[in-house]
């Protein structure tokens, strides 16, 4: 451990990191979209297109359904707030920031659950068929994805003997080159959960509107203008949180442990490179996979749960034996 840094500096860095996280999320979405267009031989939009979309939505007037309650209006702010808090917990450029010390990874899962709960309520609030259908599907997927994610998290916690993200990352960083079957399984499980939870292709298609297969889009169909912008931005942050989690837990090299300018610069470069690579992986995966039927999603997530369980079992059987 390094000598305790100046608390003011640490809190300022935590604030800057959270802001950077939120500001960079649409960039990641733009990057994924751009690579995908290139993969499919289409003309790609600019990398900054998500920012333009968001600013356009913020400038428009809100159209509300007649029977929308306060819940419908409050939900986007709750969702966005939950994701800002979640983003502040995840170490992006530097580990050991005070925000990461306050909350552990189980709280992170809790923030996701809070946001999902309000989004599902808002989907049902208007009373349209699409909203209710989207909410029920989202909750079905979530009820299967959450145990798998928690199980993967517990595997990580057992390896590092803590649930604190910063400490887990530091443990993996200092372990050197150790081949752990449990980490491999946890990585696969977490990747499958991330795909399901952020609405990417085999589970949900992020590019569809007004189709019977949609899940996330069905819930937010009634939203417009700044409400829609907040929700879209929140889902971009969600994708980024999962990508950063996977990148920094399993490939922690380069993350800043001290708060010096060079370490932080290296951390920023490293995480950018890692996210760019993960984006490419995601696009290749989305291009080769076909969207699966909704009724096969439980099987997909059941397999993710099994992988996480196998990770824990192999940790107990193979790695800690007497």
């Amino acid at each position, binding site marked *: 451990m390094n000598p305790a840094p100046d608390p003011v500096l640490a809190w300022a860095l935590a604030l800057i990191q959270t802001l950077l996280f939120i500001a960079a999320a649409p960039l990641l979405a733009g990057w994924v979209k751009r690579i995908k267009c290139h993969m499919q031989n289409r003309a790609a939009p600019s990398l900054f297109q998500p920012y333009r979309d968001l600013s356009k939505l913020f400038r428009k007037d809100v159209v509300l359904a007649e029977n929308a309650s306060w819940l419908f209006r409050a939900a986007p702010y709750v969702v966005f707030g939950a994701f800002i808090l979640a983003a502040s917990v995840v170490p992006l450029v530097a580990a050991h920031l005070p925000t990461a010390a306050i909350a552990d990874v189980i709280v992170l899962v809790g923030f996701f659950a809070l946001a999902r709960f309000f989004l599902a309520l808002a989907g049902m609030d208007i009373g349209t068929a699409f909203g209710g259908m989207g909410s029920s599907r989202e909750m079905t997927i979530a009820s299967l994805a959450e145990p798998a994610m928690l199980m993967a998290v517990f595997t990580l916690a057992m390896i590092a003997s803590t649930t604190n993200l910063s400490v887990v990352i530091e443990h993996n960083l200092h*372990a*050197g*080159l*150790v*081949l*752990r*079957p*449990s980490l*491999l*399984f946890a990585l696969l499980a977490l990747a499958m959960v991330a795909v399901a939870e952020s609405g990417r292709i085999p589970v949900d298609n992020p590019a569809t509107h007004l189709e019977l297969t949609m899940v996330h889009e069905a819930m937010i169909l009634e939203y417009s203008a700044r409400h829609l912008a907040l929700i879209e931005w929140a889902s971009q942050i969600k994708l980024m949180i999962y990508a950063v989690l996977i990148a920094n837990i399993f490939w922690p090299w380069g993350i800043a442990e001290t708060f010096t300018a060079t370490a932080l610069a290296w951390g920023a470069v490293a995480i950018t490179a890692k996210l760019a690579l993960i984006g490419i992986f995601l696009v290749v995966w989305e291009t080769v996979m076909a969207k699966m039927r909704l009724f096969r999603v*439980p*099987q997909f997530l*059941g*397999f993710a749960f*099994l*992988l996480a*369980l*196998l990770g824990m*079992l*192999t940790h*107990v*059987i*193979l*790695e*800690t*034996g*007497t």
Partner: protein
Amino acid sequence: MNLASLSLYHQALLVAAALVLFTSFMMLATARIRPLIFAFAWQGALLAIVTALVALVSNHPHLYVSALLTLGLKALLIPWMLHRLSARLNILHEVEPIMHPSMMLVAGAMLVIFSYYVATPIVHLSTLVTRNTIAVSMAVILLGMLLMVSRSKAVAQVVGFMSIENGLFFAAVVSTYGMPMIVELGIAFDVLVAMVLFGVFFFQIRASIDSLDVDRMNRLSEKNE
């Protein structure tokens, strides 16, 4: 035992052992014949890697021969024969509905925990470097049995049978550093002969009951209904 203090080859051995277990679960979860055969072939290849790594870690050069034998027989020849048979029987793309797929995976996980429980005393007494993998090898045997019990198509049952054999070989390698070469060769040829016989059986079964679904055999009776 501290994982980080082991050599890199030993760590790779543990990863390969875990992946063998994973291929068993893959077989439980796949409903189509073709991916089932591929998963079986991968299990054979990973088993060959495990055997070679055990040979390297424990310094038993005769295990390299076993590894080569496993690779040739269980990763290449038998899967190829199964594939050719399935192609000739025209069932390569057939989908066999799995009853309660999620329950099956949970049952598989239970079997892993059970075999860990059973193997714990051995692990405590043994001084082998590979003692931790004994539980995994037992789990592979039990998962092969579960695969045989849960499927009704003859080809899937044969894959389950071969997977049990893989588990037995795995157990022999990690608990006693392999059997004498003459026994090993004998088993290898037995498996090969069994495969040829299964091939003949497939055609016989299909000729007599018009299907490879062995559950229908329960309905054979003397009476003409």
